[in-house]
């Protein structure tokens, strides 16, 4: 087994004149959760469809679970497409049994597993109802069950949280976490930064068909620090003025001191200690994923992917 569940190199996909994905490299180590982020139309879905061999890249290579994405390998993937698709006229349980049997599971086993999952997601009473009688969110849950039913090695979820209420989002989040604990690799795209921040070990940010950022989330955040220091303390702020910091930005109780004011963190700390300031908080601020996203995806003309693959500082 190779160490990467997914490996894209130099992948490019064009639709007519428009390049949907350009020269894309991506490696997802086995067992990690990777969030694929990017504005609308940036090429997330196209990338995912190429990984699933639904689209063929014009250039570059796609490796899935250590080889070309053939049926044997794709059968070990659980894939939730962006556009939800279900057989509307079929009954919920029959639909799941069909999907399981297609992947080589026996009828009894799929049946049992499907029932377990339906119970877990609060759908057991709907097992023998036609899918079209379910609400959209419920259908989505059924479809999600279809992706995890066969215990896949890799889960590829295209915007799995959209359309779900907060409670179901939490349920789904915990299931995803649980799958990861079992060793499943997970790739999902999302527009929910909070969720991504909570779930992802790694993120990959695409903007305008190109990879902008890719790496371990913690390292990325560290790397994306702007040097702003947040401090909170008792007493007045005259000592800051003596350091030459006038009108510091206030956020709640904290003072935010941006880099570029000529005050290094260690000097600030030393002065604070010397001045006997009662410090309550002293922190090198890390940007939220939301800020990183806006900073990079919002640029009018993003530079081609920065060389941060692998999360090097």
């Amino acid at each position, binding site marked *: 087994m190779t160490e990467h569940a997914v490996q894209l190199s130099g992948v490019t996909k064009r639709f007519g004149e428009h390049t949907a994905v350009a020269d894309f490299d991506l490696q997802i180590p086995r067992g990690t959760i990777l969030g694929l982020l990017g504005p609308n139309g940036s090429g997330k879905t196209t990338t995912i469809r190429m990984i699933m061999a639904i689209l063929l890249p014009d250039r570059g290579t796609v490796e899935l679970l250590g080889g070309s994405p053939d049926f044997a390998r*794709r059968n070990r993937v659980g894939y939730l497409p962006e*556009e939800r*698709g*279900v057989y509307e006229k079929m009954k919920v349980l029959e639909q799941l049994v069909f999907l399981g049997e*297609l992947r080589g599971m026996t009828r009894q086993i799929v049946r049992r597993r499907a029932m377990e999952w339906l119970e877990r997601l609060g759908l057991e009473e709907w097992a023998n109802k036609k899918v079209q009688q379910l609400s959209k969110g419920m259908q989505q849950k059924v479809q999600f069950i279809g992706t995890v039913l066969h215990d896949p090695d890799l889960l590829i979820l295209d915007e799995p949280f959209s359309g779900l209420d907060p409670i179901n989002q939490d349920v789904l989040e915990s299931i995803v976490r649980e799958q990861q604990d079992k060793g499943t690799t997970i790739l999902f795209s999302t527009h929910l930064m909070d969720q991504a921040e909570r779930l992802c070990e790694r993120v990959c940010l695409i903007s305008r068909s190109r990879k902008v950022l890719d790496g371990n989330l913690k390292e990325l955040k560290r790397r994306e620090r702007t040097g702003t220091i947040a401090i909170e303390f008792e007493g007045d702020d005259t000592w800051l003025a003596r350091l030459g910091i006038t009108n510091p930005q206030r956020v709640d109780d904290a003072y935010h001191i941006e880099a570029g004011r000529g005050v290094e963190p260690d000097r600030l700390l030393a002065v604070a200690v010397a001045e006997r300031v009662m410090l309550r908080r002293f922190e090198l601020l890390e940007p939220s994923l939301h800020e990183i996203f806006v900073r990079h995806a919002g640029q009018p003309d993003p530079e081609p992917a920065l060389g941060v693959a692998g999360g090097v500082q």
Partner: protein
Amino acid sequence: MRQVWVVLRREYIERVKTKGFIIATIAMPVLMIGLIGLSAFLSIQAERSERDLALVDLTGQLGETVAAGLEAVGYDVELVDSDVGLQEMDRRVTEDEIEAYVVLDDLTIQEGTFAYRGNEAPGRVRAALFENVVVETVLELRLSFAGNTAGLRELLAGGRLSFESLGEEQSEMERVSGIATGFAGAFLLYFTMLFYGAYVLRSVLDEKRNRVVEVVVSSISPWRLMLGKILGVGSMGLTQVGIWVGCAALIGLLGIPMIAANWPAVDVGELSQLMPGAGSLGLLLVFFLLGYFLYSSLFAAVGAMCSTEEEAQQAQFPVMMLLIIPFILQMTSIEGSGLPWMDWAALFPFFSPIMMYPRAVVGAVPWWMVATSMVLMAAALIGTAWVAGRIYRVGILMQGKRPTLRELVRWIKQA
């Protein structure tokens, strides 16, 4: 293969469960038989209800024969003495003693015209029967003046060709049976290929439209998916046709003895000869299978090319044409054969089911042509399935507008 089976079973069960299938399969034949029976019953009832009819013969030569003739076709006619007078007869009609009466006079002998006097015009059936009986009687009378009645009658009837077979013995009844079987078979083949093909198209299109296919083809190759689908719909079709044929056979088996019991005049032996034999049924199955696979793979490819119902309506037009043309050609040659070039047209694989089957059953073409058409169909099937499979494979995952012909060719060439 297990995967193909899983797809086949889903397709079959989901279809057979629907109300549409149950109605079409069971309710329709029952309803049809019921309707035919009912209308036959009603028309007999209507004809029998008021039958107080009278006949006045002013010629004195026709009355008895006409009355007897009418009686033979089921009308009880009172032969009234010509002294009674027409005024008296009119009174009887107006006072509802009788429904109507017929007057035979000299003109009847001269040119076959006669009056039917009543409040309501006679029904079509009645008018035709009356005319028939009267004309027969008059003819008989007038021919008797010329001697050799029988020969003249034959001549008047327009002469007659009698076929003398130099090949195998084929009775007239067998020939009629062949024509009927061929005609019904061509009809059945046309409609089943059309409808079951449309089912396949719909099934492909639905799966593509609701994107289930993206999930499904991550587990199963498009080729197997298509095969499973076609086999599934085909099994449904065989079930349906099987039930119909079974029903028909049952009616035949139960119906013929019933006819024999109620209408002793009908020759039951001849009637049973009309029933298609096992050979023509077996041939029907072969043509159905080849034709169905041929057309359903075309329909599957069309479904895969389209993204919307409207597009599919348009795109299926050429395929429909392939079905309609032989059907129309066949209708012009109901007797099984037709213009000689049609026998050759029947060799064209897409025309063969509809055109070759009736020819084969009637025996209008030599056996080697039938065999050749089967071989050609099988070859065409392999080619069509290959092309359709390639279009299907690419098409089901494509969204957006329908491909142009050039794009289609690229799809097919794509490795």
